[in-house]
């Protein structure tokens, strides 16, 4: 991990090696033999995922950003079987700076797709925690039922999430949040919220 650059200002870390590691890490990770049994680790991982959902529903985006590692990614693939972000566009592939762009845009008073803003409930369930080795990052799978109300219409968006977590200065932080939407390769109405 490079420290010479501020990832809020410049994006040096999204490199060819970063992509290669990302694609490898999000390949074949949901293995029964890698399920974490330590209740303390499981509780910490689940607490972070639930807290993330709560901060999104409270529109507390600045606090929400603090849950992510400085060098992080928010990734919504465009294919149900996953896709390689080097070859294909995603519904969203945000680095730290673009996450902050997104939060900044919402604060301009002119992001019409979020005026009025969406009211959301991120319902998170079926949490399972995986780890490929003692020092490896945690991989957390959870199911997502996202209810949204905006401008007179309600809808349900569903899918599952993979959170990649690591401890930084003693605190669990999100390295990558991947959201796998059931409708990822369909035409989406107003995808201006964080899933």
């Amino acid at each position: 991990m490079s420290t010479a650059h501020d990832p809020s200002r410049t994006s040096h870390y999204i490199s060819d090696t970063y992509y290669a590691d990302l694609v490898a890490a999000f390949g074949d990770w949901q293995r029964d033999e890698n399920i974490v049994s330590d209740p303390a680790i499981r509780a910490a991982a689940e607490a972070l995922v639930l807290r993330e959902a709560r901060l999104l529903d409270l529109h507390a985006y600045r606090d929400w950003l603090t849950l992510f590692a400085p060098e992080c990614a928010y990734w919504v693939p465009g294919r149900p079987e996953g896709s390689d972000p080097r070859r294909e566009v995603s519904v969203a592939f945000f680095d730290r700076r673009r996450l902050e762009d997104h939060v900044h845009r919402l604060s301009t008073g002119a992001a019409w797709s979020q005026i009025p803003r969406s009211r959301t409930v991120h319902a998170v369930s079926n949490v399972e925690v995986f780890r490929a080795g003692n020092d490896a990052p945690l991989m957390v799978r959870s199911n997502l039922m996202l209810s949204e109300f905006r401008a007179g219409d309600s809808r349900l968006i569903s899918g599952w999430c993979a959170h990649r977590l690591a401890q930084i200065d003693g605190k669990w932080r999100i390295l990558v949040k991947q959201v796998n939407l059931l409708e990822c390769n369909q035409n989406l109405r107003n995808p201006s919220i964080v899933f």
Partner: protein
Amino acid sequence: MPSHPLNQAPLPIGRTNPDYDWDQLVHEDRVHRVVYTAPDIFEAEMTNIFGGVWVYLAHESQIPRNDDYVTVRLGLRPLIVLRDSSGKYRALYNRCTHRGATLCREASGSAKVFQCAYHGWTFMNTGELRGVPWPEGYASDLRNSCFNLAQVPRVESYRGFIFGTLNPDAPALADYLGPVREPIDEWLDRHPGSRVVVRDANRLKFHGNWKLAYDNSADGYHVKFSHRSLLEMENRFKADNEKGMSFYKDHPDDAPMYVRYFGNGHHFKDKRPNVEKRPGALWEIEGLAPGMEFFEEEIRKRLGENAPRALDLASSEPVNINVFPNLLILGNHIQVIEPVSVTETNTTWYATAVVDEDGDLGETVDLINAFRMRTQEGFPAFGEVDDATNFEEIQRGLAAPEDEWVYMHRGLGIPGRFTTGADGSITGPATDEVFMRETFKEWKRLMANPPAIEIRREV
């Protein structure tokens, strides 16, 4: 009574043209709200417009080998666009001739034969009926072409873009496109080998009429307002705006960009004159995207003085090239407008990638394309969502029946505002609605005089 010209063939059963006085709906300066809200007008458009002119279907790079197919729609007609086993491009109706089930239910794939899931009739990818289960149960001759799949009778390509029309009287595709071919050529020719390939798409939809997206496509008037949050976001680290669409920041009509109407509903907003003509100039205004600094340093390290040209390949081309009624080439996207209903529309933004045709780019082509994917995700996520919201709010506003008019008269009647080229094209300042007025003249002509429509079953 409907005013069908007497020289037209009778409309097929079920095809009626709604009974409007089209001159009352489309004026020089305004259109009536019902052109966006009336279900009978929408239904007629799906044949008069989407059957009557050349409509974009797919890109050749989506079906690179014989037997490859993609499923699309022509208006509301489900089609299988394919290269048959001999390499010929065809657009088959995705509709079994037996009792009407769709034959192919995948978005894309490869097949020599399509078998219907309902009673098992099979068809060659030429559309010919290959066989039916237990044929001795039929007294009629199943080799009669009436049992072959329907197909779009005319399918032609222009430099990789596949179009189809049901209109036997339509001009050749190249003539239909006319002078809009020039910006399409330039858009392609900036790439190695003068071509691009299509990749996955950013797919959006909105609850509004399809024409709201087409009306927007050359609209330089909305940018500073509809996209204000994006303009602020793109320049949040800068004291002076200089990234992305910042040439809209002051008075866009004072900038050298322009809007041009080409005829047949095609138009063009050309923002290239705002950018210096030298390698690297496009890159300098490209908005920030994930991995940008890594990419730039890597390309400069690997390519030295050839770096600016490679950096420009990952930058978006500042043009909007609009081919009526459904193909919008903008930045590096091939956007397709897909009507779903009178009040629902899909806009599908196909990403494009560079091909290292001559081997000049070597391994850097993968780096260029990886970053080009990130630049192409930006506008759908941060720009188009706000336009689509405004399209939906137009559709809500138009619910008021007695408030009838939608105005499009910006620039109309101001002497000296437009120039007319030798090819008949009309050029004006970037914020003018001349492109919309001229397109609606063409729309009115097609709606008032329903074109002849036919399908083919001979293979």
